[in-house]
C-alpha cells in the first residue's frame, strides 16, 4: 500500500483545496513567521557571539594573564614577575572624582593609571584613534566619550584629577572585554601611571586595585605557570585572571542573556501556535462539507485527513522558511540593538544550524497546533454530505487524540525551556507558568462567556445586547482573542511592572528627608572642615561615619587560609579573604535591627574584650555564633574580637550600612576615612556642593542619588529596550493572531450582518454591533492580561527581587486603552466592507 504522503492525488487535492483559502492560510503562515524569525535571529546571534568570544578571547583580556591585588606589589612579587619574562604593563585602579573646569562638571569615575603597552591584544577604541597611544606620552587623559558629551568636554580641554590637571587627549569608546553598560555605571578615565603621584589621590586606606598585565613569551603555558606559582600568589593575596577565565565569565553572562531572549522569542512562536490553531480551525470548519463529499465519493478518512495535514505541513514550511529569512535580517540588526551589552564586535554571518533549528521548531509548533483542529476530521462521517447545508456550521467532533497532542505540545515547551535555562527546575517552572497562564486565560474566557450568558443585561438596547451576545454565541472568537491579546498584554505589562518596581525602589530610598548625596573618602583631618562647608551651604549633615578597612585573619582560632583549605568548613573563599569596611559607633541606626546578642557600645578599658556586631547573613555564612572569636587584620595590626551580636540590615536604604560594626573606643586611631551624608534640595545645590568640595578636597568623592537613579534608569532602559525589541515579535504575532481571529469572525458575521440589513438595520447599527463586540473582547482580554501581569510581577517582586511591589496605575490604564483601541481598530477596519456591500450581492455569493 502506498503511504498516504506519497499518494499524488492527495498532494494534488491539497493544492487545489487551498485555492479559495490561501488568504486565510497566509495568516497561518504569518502567525509562526515572526516567532521563527525571533528564534533564528537570537540563536544565530548567540552562536556568533560564542564563536567571537572564542576567537577574540585574547583581546577580551588584552593580555595573556592579569595578576591583581589590593595593595602595591611586594618586592618579592616584583622579582617573581621579572622571572616570568615577556612584556608587562602596570595599572593602578581606583574610584575618584574628576572635574572639568570648562564644563564646570564633576563626576565619580574609575581612574586607570597605566604604564606599558597594554592592551597587547585588541585595542582601546578612541576618538581620535591615535589618542589611544598619544595619551601615554605626557599629562594626558582618555575620558569616557559619553561623559565628555554629558559635560560638553572637547579634546584639548582640561580635566582635574586630584591635585593635577590633565589635558583630554581623546574620548574612550571601547575597552577590550568591557561592555558599554559597565562603563556607563562607572565611566573610565585613563592616565599615564607616571603622573599618578602628582594627583595625590592614592593614600593608605583607600580602595585601590593594582594590576600587572602580561604578554608572555610564545610557548609559555599559562596554566602550568599559575599552578607552579599559585602558593606564592595566594600568600600575597593576589588574584590571577587568564584568557580562559575571562572567556568563561563573559561567555556565561552572554549565554544567560541569549538564552533568556530565546525564551522570549519562543513565546512569540507559541503565541503564533494559537494563531495557527485558530486559522486552521476556521479553515477546517468550512471544509466539513468537502470532506464528507470526498468520503461519499470513496476517499478514506485518512486520505481526507492527509489532504489537510499536507496543507498544514507545506504552509508551516513556507511560514517557517519566510520566518528564517526574516530572522537572518533581524540577526543583522541585533548587534546594533545590543551593542551596549556586547564585549566584542560581531560581524554578520548566518548560522545554518540556527536556521534549520528555527525552521524545525516552527514546523513542529505549527503542525502540532494545526493538528488540534485537524484531528477531528478523521471522524467526519460521509453521511454529513446528505445532511449538510451551508446555513449550518457543524461543530467539530471530539477526538481523544487531541489530548495526546496537547501533551506533546507541553513536552516540546518543556524540553525547549529546560535546554534554554541554566537549571532544569527553571525550565519546568517556565513551562508550568506558560501552561498556567494559557489555562487561566482560557478559563477566564470561558467564564466570561458563561457569565455574560447567565447574567445577560436584557434591559440594554438592541445594539448593545447584540454586540455583547456575540461573545458567547456559536462560532464566537472569545477564547482565541483572549489568548492572543491577553497573553501579549500580560507579557508587556509584566516587563513594564518589573522595571518600574525596580526603579521605584531606588527612588523611594531617596525621598522625604532621607539623604540623597554622599561624600566619601574624607580623611580624618578633613572631616571637620567638610562638615562646616556643608553646613555653610545650609545643608544638613545627616550622617558622618568613619570607615576602617580590614581583613579577617582567623575565625574561631583557625587562620582563614586553613579554613579555606578545609573542604569540611564549606565557607566561601570570598568571605574569608574579602576586604571588610567596618565602622564603629555606640548605637544601632534606623536601618538595623538587633537579631541576637547585645550590642557593645564602647570599650572603656583597652584590656576589655571587643565585641563586634555582624550582619546576620554574614555570621551565618561564616558559621559563627555569639561568643566565637574573630581576629581582624587592620592594616597590619591584629585585633582580637568576639562576636557580640548579629543585626538584620536593610541594604536597600541609600545610606552607609555595614556588615561589621565595632564598638567605640577601639578603632579611633586606625587609618580611616569618613563618609558624610546630606540632603540637597536640587541639582544646582548638589553641583555647587560637589564643586566646592572638589576644589578644596580633590581626594573626596561624591555620589548624588539623582545620578545613581539616572544611571540605573539608563541601564534598565537599555535592558528593557532589548527585551522589548524581542517582545515586539510577540506583540506583532499577537496582532496577527488578532487580525486572524477578526477576519475569521468576519466570515461568520457577514451573513448575519446581511440578514440584519435585509431586516432593516442601518449601516451605523451594524458597525456599532461589531464595535461593541470588539470593545468587550478588547477590554476583557486586556483586563485579564493586566491582572495576571500584576499578580506575576508581585510574585517576582516578593520572591525574586524581595522588594516592595509598586503598581503605577496611570501606565496600566494607558496599556488597557491601547489594547482596547487596537482591538477596536482592527475590528472596525476589517468590518468596514461588510456594510458597504448590498444584501443581495452577499446572499448570492453565500448561497
Amino acid at each position, binding site marked *: 500500500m502506498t503511504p498516504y504522503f506519497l499518494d499524488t*492525488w492527495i498532494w*494534488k487535492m491539497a493544492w*487545489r*483545496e*487551498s*485555492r*479559495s*483559502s490561501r488568504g486565510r492560510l497566509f495568516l497561518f503562515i504569518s502567525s509562526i513567521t515572526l516567532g521563527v524569525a525571533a528564534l533564528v535571529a537570537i540563536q544565530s546571534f548567540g552562536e556568533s557571539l560564542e564563536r567571537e568570544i572564542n576567537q577574540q578571547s585574547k583581546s577580551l583580556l588584552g593580555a595573556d594573564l592579569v595578576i591583581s591585588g589590593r595593595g602595591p606589589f611586594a618586592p618579592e612579587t616584583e622579582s617573581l614577575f621579572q622571572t616570568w619574562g615577556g612584556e608587562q604593563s602596570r595599572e593602578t585602579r581606583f574610584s575618584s572624582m574628576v572635574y572639568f573646569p570648562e564644563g564646570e562638571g564633576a563626576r565619580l569615575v574609575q581612574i586607570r593609571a597605566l604604564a606599558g603597552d597594554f592592551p597587547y591584544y585588541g585595542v582601546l577604541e578612541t576618538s581620535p584613534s591615535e589618542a589611544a597611544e598619544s595619551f601615554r606620552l605626557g599629562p594626558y587623559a582618555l575620558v569616557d566619550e559619553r561623559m565628555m558629551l554629558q559635560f560638553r568636554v572637547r579634546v584639548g580641554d582640561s580635566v582635574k584629577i586630584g591635585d593635577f590637571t590633565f589635558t583630554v587627549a581623546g574620548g574612550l569608546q571601547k575597552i577590550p572585554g568591557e561592555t558599554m553598560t559597565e562603563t556607563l555605571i562607572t565611566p573610565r578615565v585613563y592616565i599615564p601611571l607616571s603622573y599618578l603621584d602628582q594627583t595625590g589621590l592614592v593614600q593608605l586606606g583607600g580602595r585601590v586595585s593594582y594590576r600587572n598585565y602580561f604578554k608572555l613569551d610564545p610557548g609559555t603555558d599559562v596554566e602550568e605557570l599559575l599552578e607552579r606559582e599559585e602558593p606564592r600568589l595566594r600568600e600575597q593575596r593576589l588574584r590571577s585572571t587568564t584568557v580562559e577565565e575571562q572567556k568563561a565569565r563573559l561567555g556565561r553572562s552572554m549565554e544567560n542573556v541569549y538564552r533568556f531572549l530565546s525564551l522570549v522569542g519562543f513565546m512569540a512562536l507559541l503565541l503564533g501556535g494559537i494563531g495557527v490553531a485558530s486559522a486552521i480551525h476556521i479553515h477546517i470548519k468550512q471544509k466539513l*462539507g*468537502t470532506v*464528507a*463529499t*470526498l*468520503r*461519499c*465519493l*470513496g*476517499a*478514506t*478518512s*485518512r*486520505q481526507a485527513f492527509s489532504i489537510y495535514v499536507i496543507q498544514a505541513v507545506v504552509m508551516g514550511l513556507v511560514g517557517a522558511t519566510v520566518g528564517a529569512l526574516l530572522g537572518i535580517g533581524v540577526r543583522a540588526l541585533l548587534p546594533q540593538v545590543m551593542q551596549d551589552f556586547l564585549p566584542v564586535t560581531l560581524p554578520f554571518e548566518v548560522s545554518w544550524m540556527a536556521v534549520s533549528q528555527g525552521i524545525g521548531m516552527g514546523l513542529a509548533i505549527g503542525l502540532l497546533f494545526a493538528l488540534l483542529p485537524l484531528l477531528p476530521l478523521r471522524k467526519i*462521517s*460521509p*453521511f454529513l*454530505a*446528505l*445532511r*449538510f*447545508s*451551508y446555513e449550518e456550521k457543524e461543530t467539530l467532533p471530539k477526538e481523544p487524540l487531541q489530548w495526546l497532542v496537547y501533551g506533546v505540545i507541553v513536552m516540546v515547551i518543556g524540553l525547549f525551556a529546560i535546554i534554554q535555562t541554566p537549571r532544569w527546575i527553571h525550565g519546568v517552572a517556565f513551562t508550568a507558568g506558560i501552561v498556567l497562564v494559557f489555562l487561566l486565560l482560557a478559563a477566564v474566557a470561558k467564564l466570561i462567556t458563561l457569565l455574560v450568558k447567565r447574567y445577560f443585561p436584557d434591559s440594554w438596547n438592541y445594539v448593545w445586547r447584540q454586540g455583547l451576545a456575540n461573545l458567547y454565541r456559536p462560532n464566537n472568537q472569545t477564547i482565541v482573542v483572549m489568548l492572543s491579546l491577553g497573553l501579549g498584554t500580560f507579557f508587556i505589562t509584566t516587563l513594564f511592572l518589573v522595571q518600574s518596581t525596580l526603579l521605584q525602589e531606588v527612588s523611594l530610598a531617596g525621598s522625604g528627608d532621607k539623604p540623597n548625596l554622599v561624600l566619601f573618602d574624607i580623611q580624618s583631618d578633613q572631616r571637620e572642615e567638610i562638615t562646616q562647608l556643608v553646613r555653610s551651604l545650609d545643608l544638613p549633615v545627616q550622617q558622618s561615619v568613619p570607615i576602617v578597612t580590614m581583613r579577617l585573619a582567623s575565625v574561631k582560632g583557625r587562620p582563614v587560609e586553613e579554613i579555606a583549605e578545609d573542604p569540611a568548613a564549606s565557607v566561601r573563599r570570598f568571605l574569608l579573604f574579602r576586604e571588610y569596611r567596618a565602622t564603629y559607633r555606640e548605637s544601632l541606626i534606623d536601618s538595623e535591627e538587633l537579631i541576637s546578642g547585645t550590642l557593645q557600645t564602647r570599650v572603656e578599658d583597652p584590656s576589655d574584650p571587643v565585641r563586634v556586631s555582624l550582619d546576620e547573613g554574614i555570621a551565618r555564612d561564616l558559621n559563627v555564633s555569639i561568643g566565637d572569636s574573630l581576629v581582624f587584620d587592620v592594616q597590619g595590626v591584629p585585633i582580637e574580637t568576639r562576636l557580640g551580636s548579629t543585626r538584620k540590615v536593610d541594604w536597600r536604604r541609600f545610606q552607609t550600612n555595614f556588615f561589621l560594626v565595632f564598638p567605640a573606643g577601639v578603632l579611633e586611631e586606625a587609618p580611616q576615612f569618613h563618609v558624610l551624608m546630606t540632603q540637597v534640595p536640587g541639582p544646582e545645590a548638589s553641583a555647587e556642593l560637589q564643586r566646592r568640595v572638589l576644589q578644596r578636597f580633590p581626594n573626596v568623592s561624591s555620589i548624588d542619588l539623582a545620578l545613581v537613579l539616572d544611571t540605573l534608569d539608563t541601564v534598565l532602559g537599555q535592558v528593557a529596550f532589548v527585551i522589548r525589541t524581542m517582545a515586539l515579535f510577540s506583540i506583532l504575532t499577537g496582532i496577527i493572531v488578532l487580525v486572524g481571529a477578526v477576519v475569521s469572525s468576519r466570515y461568520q458575521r457577514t451573513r448575519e450582518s446581511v440578514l440584519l440589513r435585509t431586516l432593516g438595520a442601518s449601516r451605523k447599527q451594524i458597525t456599532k454591533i461589531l464595535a461593541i463586540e470588539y470593545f468587550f473582547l478588547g477590554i476583557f482580554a486586556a483586563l485579564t492580561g493586566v491582572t495576571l501581569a500584576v499578580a506575576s510581577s508581585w510574585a517576582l517582586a516578593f520572591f525574586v527581587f524581595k522588594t516592595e511591589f509598586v503598581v503605577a496605575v496611570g501606565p496600566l490604564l494607558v496599556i488597557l486603552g491601547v489594547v482596547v483601541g487596537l482591538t477596536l481598530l482592527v475590528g472596525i477596519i476589517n468590518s468596514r466592507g461588510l456594510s458597504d456591500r448590498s444584501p443581495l450581492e452577499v446572499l448570492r*455569493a453565500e448561497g
Partner: protein
Amino acid sequence: MIETSVLRAEHLTKTYRSGERTLTVLRDVSFTVPEGSRCAIVGPSGSGKTTLLGLCAGLDRPTSGSVSLNGVALNDLNEDELAQTRNQHVGFVFQTFQLISTLTALENVVVPLELRGESGVRRQATELLNQVGLGDRLDHYPAQLSGGEQQRVSLARAFINQPKILFADEPTGNLDGETAEKVSDLLFELNEAAGTTLVLVTHNLELAQRTQRIITLKAGSIGSDENLFRESQDLAR
C-alpha cells in the same frame, strides 16, 4: 430471466440517542432493489428517507439489520472498505449538489476516478460534461455556475465511475420548476443509457412517478411499496 437484486435491506432499524432520550428514525425496514431498476423513496419530512438512503449507501451504520450492496454485506466492511465500495459501485446526487467549491467543473467530475488512481481521466470527464451540455464550462468553479448547471456537473460526477447503483437525494429539491425538469430528464437519460440502478429520495411525486416503484415511508416504517411498472402493464392490458 432471473432477477438479481443489487441492493438488499433487511430489518433496518436506526435509533439516535439524545441525552436520556432514544429516537427511532427507522423501524424494521426491509426491501430489495433489482439490478437496473428505478425506485423512489417518498414520505413526509422526518419520515426517515435520507437516513434510509444513508444506510443503503454505506454512509452510516444501522443500529440493527443489514444492508447488502452488489452482493456484499456492508456490516462486515470497515470504514476503508466501505469507502472503496462506494468508489467502485456507487454514485451520488445530492440536493445541495455538494460540488467541491475549490475545484473546477472538470476537476469535480474526475475525483472518483482519480481516487482509484486512474490516469487519463480528463477525456472521459470532458465527454460526460459535453453530454450534460457543459462542454464549454469545464474550467468554471461551482460559484460561477447556476444551480441547474451545478447539478448537471454533479450528475456527470455521479456517472463517471459507471456505478452499479446511483443514490439521488432530492436531486431537484433546490431547483426551479423548469430547471428541475431538465435535470431530471438528464438524470433518467443518463441512467437509461448506463443501465444503472437508481434509488431516488424525493418529496416530488411527479418525479417519483417516473420510476418503476415507489416505497412510501411513514414514521420510519414502510407504509406502502407500489410497483408502478406492473400497474402500467396492467393498465395497458
